[in-house]
């Protein structure tokens, strides 16, 4: 039973080649995960600009997750290696600013890992729901 009635809002950026396909596979296998997770397709996890993540938080997202191919499996060879560095630094910075570190996550999900995709989203949604509303990166104007 979820005590908190409020539904968290989660934005998931999925790379076209692995994770978006993984999400499709989760669908094919009817593996359910919360509807709070909304997927945005990007060609590669390295397409995700930190600005997109902050923007999502500004607009009221409670959690942002990036999914890409496993390191070494990037369709574009090296994209996810750059993602890994960028997000390591960005997440560390957000943590430094006192933003709850559980609100951001990077997960490597291959096209074959439908089950992992669903499990990841279930877990992330639960974690984010437990944190409650994102108050530290919100823009009050969007809250009304």
């Amino acid at each position: 039973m979820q005590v908190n009635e409020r539904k968290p809002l989660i934005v998931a950026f999925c790379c076209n080649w692995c994770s978006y396909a993984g999400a499709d596979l989760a669908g094919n296998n009817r593996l359910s995960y919360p509807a709070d997770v909304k997927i945005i397709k990007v060609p590669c996890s390295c397409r995700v600009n930190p600005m997109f993540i902050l923007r999502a938080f500004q607009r009221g997202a409670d959690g942002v997750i990036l999914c890409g191919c496993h390191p070494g499996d990037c369709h574009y060879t090296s994209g996810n290696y750059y993602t890994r560095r960028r997000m390591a630094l960005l997440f560390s910075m957000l943590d430094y600013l006192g933003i709850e570190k559980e609100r951001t996550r990077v997960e490597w999900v291959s096209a074959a890992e439908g089950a992992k995709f669903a499990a990841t989203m279930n877990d992330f949604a639960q974690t984010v729901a437990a944190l409650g509303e994102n108050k530290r990166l919100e823009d009050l104007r969007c809250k009304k």
Partner: protein
Amino acid sequence: MQRIGVFVCWCGSNIAGTVDVQAVSEALKNEPGVVFSANYQYMCSQAGQNMIIDAVKEHNLTGIVVCSCSPRMHEATFRKTAATAGLNPYMVEIANIREQCSWVHKDMLTGTEKAIILGKAAVAKVNLNTPLVAGETPVTKRALVIGGGIAGIQTALDIAEAGFPVDIVETKPTIGGKMAQLDKTFPTLDCAACILTPKMVDVAQNENIRIFSYSEVTEVKGFVGNFDVTVKKKARYVNEDICTGCGACVEKCPMKKVPNEFNLGMDNRSAIYIPFAQAVPKVATIDPNHCNMLKNGRCGVCSKVCAAGAIDYKQQDEYIQEKYGAIVVATGFNPISMDKFDEYAYNQSKDVITSLEFERLTNAAGPTAGKLLRPSDLKHPHTIVFVQCVGSRCASCAEKGKEYCSKICCMYTAKHAMLTRDKYPDTEVYVFYIDVRTPGKSFDEFYRRAVEEYGVHYIKGMVGKVFPEGDKLKVQASDLLNNKQLHIDADLVVLAAAIEPDKSARPLATMLTASMDTNDFFTEAHPKLRPVESPTAGVFLSGTCQGPKDIPETVSQASAAAAKVVSLLVKDKLKGNPCVASSDELMCNGCSSCERVCPYGAITYEDKEFRMPNRTVAIRRVAKVNPAVCQGCGCCTVVCPSGAMDLRGFANRQIIAEVDAICK
């Protein structure tokens, strides 16, 4: 301002079962830019597509949003529909309300709510879409086949037959692969050499085919239609063009104690060698690890006996660069190592062998000249135990075996058992199996013949352990149907080792940027609809590099891959992916960050003149993207601080519009 049409698909009940499609199309009607919204049972059907085409015409639509299944399924379909209706195909966006909505959510309310939001995001994106036109690139009309086994041979022959030049790169000194090592082939029992070697000769004689044997691919650059490949021809210390393959050197070579890999180490070869009699190319190769001349400069016999003067101890590795339009991967398989299976005493007894070794033992060209003799004492074995699924279907420990079924073992074991009983009726043959899997034309009949006509003992159960005692192998096994534990004194134990992709496949996949599954088998672009293509454009899959398969299946896939290659190579020009990066020169500050992260070298810099205030001119260094080389990953867009670099089709503004729509 766009004029957007929204089309919500029911997908029968697949979507409509969990999503109120009517509510979705109603809700999206009110989104900015939307002038038309409808829903229909099957948008992908002809009628559905016609509905889109009609709506485009009637409502002067400039953009289309289809709320349906995954874009991976039907994005291409709807883009074509848009093109038919006279729209730019990139004015279409798909909201995935099936795989990512109706199929994963249970109740109507949740599903509908989410579908509306996904629809809104797609509308928000289309509002910012711009027509994109794909660039064209010429196609290099030459194919590369990596691997010279039966898969590679068949693919190369078929491509060459269609009139295109093909190069085969094979790491071994000869083509032929695993099939060359086999004795007979199931289910017809014709001899492998008899059907393979003529094809090898065809390859050698085909004017369109070049063979790079004893070679490997070291670098792959470029993209579909325009691959730049570097092939390393390893030094074989024999001039291929001169060597006649007479074998005089092989005969005279004093170093004769080199384990013969062709016979899986069951006999020896010389340091200079030709792997087998029908090798193609039939050229000698010096094994530098064992040749005394190369190791310490003392010998030189082969050079003296070579009438053609083909021996060249100073030969160096040679790097060949070639352009290709398409690449076929046919890297094949190997049996897995039996080292971890202590219970079968593979490392303790020479008489525990793998099935491939058994092939060599029964092969007329093998170490025993085709007589079935056990390796330890060369005596005729009277009791033979075959163990199935050694390392296959093994989910418990990844370091030991493989989770998948190796597919070919049931059939070749039946073949081995049958042939043994046929040639040596005095031999008792036991086959321990978990299941006997024989789907395939004439396969089950074949297996039943082994049991019914040849009297092979098929026992449902597994061998638990094998241990040598005296000159016997004690086999302890279960007979599940009789609920018994069996103890058999065997002379020979044959293990049906699981097969795994060749070790060279992983680094090759990285070079090709082709994806692999967790077992290192190449992934196909679509498991059903595009089984011979890799998701990486221009890379095709042939044979067991994609998954376990037998010879007939390999050959059909090889031909299928060839057909795909041919249909690519007949094109003079390829339409590229229009979703590529592009740099706004006015904003670019020339910092080179994008150039450094581009995996394709698609970004270069040039000095460009700019008109500045008051009629002055400034020269600035700015980035330029080669749209034919760019693959559209977008890595450069994030390192560009000014946002000068953006990705067409996935522009910053578009993605942010999606974020905004979702976070409303």
